[in-house]
């Protein structure tokens, strides 16, 4: 072992620790904001099963494979599964939450522009996992 002074290494480790602390703090703050579900968010029940998604709106309307929502409103997804693990993902809106049988997971979003976006499954669920897809339609408010 060299009998040299080790100060460069101490500084380096201090910088690494400072960087990691910064990453942690930023992530903590962002997650805190992202997890706060607005009180007036409309609930949509999302059910994953091999190999398609179904949706049920608050007013009882059901959709299979497609989801229609309105611009400017907040929606809270209650995600569940009927068989194996799936993961509900609207990549364009960074919505991701696992669908686990036996529990309900919650994730929310508020679309801000009209458009069509892909819904996909992000947890391996078997044969047609690769094609367990859907479409999100964000539309102008109907009233």
């Amino acid at each position, binding site marked *: 072992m060299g009998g040299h002074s080790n100060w460069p290494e101490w500084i380096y480790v201090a910088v690494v620790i400072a960087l990691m602390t910064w990453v942690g703090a*930023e992530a903590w703050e*962002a997650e805190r904001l992202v997890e706060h579900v607005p009180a007036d968010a409309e609930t949509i029940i999302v059910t994953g099963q091999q190999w398609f998604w179904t949706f049920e709106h608050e007013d009882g309307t059901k959709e299979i494979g497609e989801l229609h929502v309105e611009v400017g409103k*907040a929606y809270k997804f209650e995600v569940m599964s009927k068989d194996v693990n799936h993961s509900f993902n609207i990549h364009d809106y960074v919505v991701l939450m696992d669908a686990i049988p036996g529990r309900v997971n919650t994730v929310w979003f508020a679309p801000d522009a009209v458009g069509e976006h892909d819904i996909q499954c992000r947890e391996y669920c078997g044969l047609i996992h690769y094609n367990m897809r859907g479409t999100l339609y964000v539309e102008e408010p109907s009233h």
Partner: protein
Amino acid sequence: MAVLVGLPAVDFAFAAGEEPGEYLDRRVLIWNLFYKMMTVAFITGSVVSGTIIWQVWRFRESHPKAKPTRYEGTDW
């Protein structure tokens, strides 16, 4: 780095908005965090890999100024 300093100011814009009809845009929040992280990662990465690349060039044995280390010839 200027981006890193300026972004927190823009950050407050999202932290603020929660009036009805004005919701937090999770995409913007998350991707902004991502870009901040990427900036730091690339800066650190360029320092680390730049150092390694320079070292590999400077301390190769075929470099004109290469000299034996003080351990060569000893029983280290």
